[in-house]
């Protein structure tokens, strides 16, 4: 029998207590140095100063000396300034694209999870396929199709339509459809999983109690899939808010600029604007913090369920 002293040193399977933190150590150190510190660096630069000679941001690592100047400038740009329109456009694009993903994705997820019968696994493979096809390749495919002599115009020509817009030069609907095309698989899969988990007997009970099949759907299935819908929406909205490549590839015009394009430009192309880019990144994070927290809670809940 182990004494109390020994019991404190060992855990339930007799492993020494320091063993488990030791296992976690490399990963924790890695994430501290290469996630936490970089995360902090955004703040240090957004709250830092600009070197007047080199025109380069100087980070301020000590929060006691943080200067709000650049931050105030970014806020001024955002509310009413040159970036306000871009921010509003980003929100509009993301909301419209998310609603479209919901309208198209729900029937697809519902069919594959509950109505596909014995061909289910083939349907499942087909809706999983876009996951493993590179996002940029999927966009490249549309650039090919929508080009001046592309297949879309050839098809329209075959129907006698000879007048077509230049699809790839600044159309809101092209960028929004591009976003839907790009992100909808990530909406469908979590929803599929949620619908798949619904117990058949629940639905049978609804039918036994006299609900019609449409009543069963609206009053049982739909409420039970609520978390899947919300999870899917959060999963696609987060990367959409940070997207800059989709509007660049499918339009490239300032008319379809999203907030990601502004940040990408400030950080990657003009060194003197780095601090402003960092400040905008902070503001973007504040804006999507609610989504991030909801998503965190979902992951935590699903691990808690797995643990039980």
């Amino acid at each position: 029998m182990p004494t109390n002293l020994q019991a404190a040193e060992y855990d339930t399977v007799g492993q020494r207590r320091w063993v488990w933190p030791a296992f976690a150590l490399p990963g924790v150190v890695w994430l501290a140095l290469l996630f936490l510190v970089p995360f902090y660096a955004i703040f240090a630069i957004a709250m830092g100063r600009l070197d007047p000679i080199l025109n380069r941001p100087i980070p301020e690592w000590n929060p006691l000396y943080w200067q709000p100047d650049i931050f105030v400038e970014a806020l001024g740009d955002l509310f009413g300034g040159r970036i306000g329109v871009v921010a509003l456009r980003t929100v509009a694009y993301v909301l419209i694209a998310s609603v479209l993903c919901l309208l198209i994705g729900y029937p697809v997820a519902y069919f594959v999870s509950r109505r596909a019968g014995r061909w289910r696994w083939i349907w499942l493979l087909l809706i999983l396929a876009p996951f493993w096809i590179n996002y940029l390749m999927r966009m490249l495919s549309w650039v090919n199709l929508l080009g001046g002599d592309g297949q879309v115009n050839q098809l329209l020509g075959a129907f006698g339509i000879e007048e077509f817009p230049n699809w790839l030069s600044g159309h809101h609907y092209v960028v929004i459809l591009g976003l839907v095309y790009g992100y909808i698989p990530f909406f469908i899969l979590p929803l599929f999983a949620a619908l798949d988990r619904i117990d058949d007997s629940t639905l049978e009970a609804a039918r036994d109690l006299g609900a019609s099949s449409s009543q069963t759907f609206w009053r049982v299935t739909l409420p039970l899939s609520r978390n899947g819908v919300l999870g899917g929406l959060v999963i696609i909205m987060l990367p959409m808010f940070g997207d800059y490549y989709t509007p660049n590839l499918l339009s490239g015009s300032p008319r379809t600029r999203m907030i990601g394009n502004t940040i990408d430009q400030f950080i990657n192309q003009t060194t003197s604007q780095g601090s402003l880019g960092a400040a905008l990144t902070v503001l973007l994070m504040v804006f999507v913090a609610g989504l991030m927290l909801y998503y965190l809670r979902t992951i935590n809940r699903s691990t808690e369920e797995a643990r039980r």
Partner: protein
Amino acid sequence: MTRRVRSVFANPWGKPRFLPLVTALYVLWSLVPVAIAVQFSFNAGRSRSTWQGFSTRWYAGSPDAAESVLHDPSLRFALNQSLKLAVLTMLVAAPIGVALAIGLARWRGRGSKASNFLMLVPLVTPELVMGVALFLVFDHLYDFVPFGTWAQFLGHVTFSISFVVIIVRGRLFAIGRDYEEAAMDLGASPFQAMRRVLLPLLAPALLASFAIVFALSIDDFVISQFLIGGAESVTIPVQLYSGARLAPPPSLNALATVLMVTTIGVIAIGGLLYRIFGKKVGASEGGALETIGRFEV
């Protein structure tokens, strides 16, 4: 299925088959553009929209023309860079992630909650934010790390670790601690129990994480682009991004196709091995699928 098809032909105005129709249209819409892009990577001519016959010139054409994936230096470098990064990332992120998963699942002391939180946050952080963060830190603080392969490698490992933890953790919970306890009742030391019981049981999850990390790394665009050093650290997705609007020849489609086949191949092998070795303790397969779906953005 055939009966259903026949009934549609017999009575096309019968009960509307809304759901299968929508799903079929969706699948066509999501996959046909890619299929066309693949088709034109085999075009004999330079066009990406007019079919001029089958050829593999854009994959392995003659070295003199330097126009194929194999012989155009910029495309070949991109392929090399992507493969190099994916293999390096896989070899480093998977072991770190597996150890972190084991540690976090069993560590019950001070700091365990905070570490768990630190592991989860990268999963929900938009890639743009992570790209900006890493760019700024390598530019201003860790300036001994050169932009290019090294920075990209560190970045890829950083976003991959959490995925590995989530995959392995699911499996760990499914295994439970009974097997290890049984081993120790039979006289194994704690370390023997881990090495000879737990690790073999974890092998499928380890294989799955290798495959997923490889795919995550080779498909990554944002981090690779933010941490790029110069022409020599262009990866395939970055090459696709910068070349797409410049009226590229079909060799760009060929490069994209090579990337697609590589990713799907690695995932298929990983999935197959997971199925072969994964049945023993009845870990939920739906769980693994959901993990991929939930976190791969």
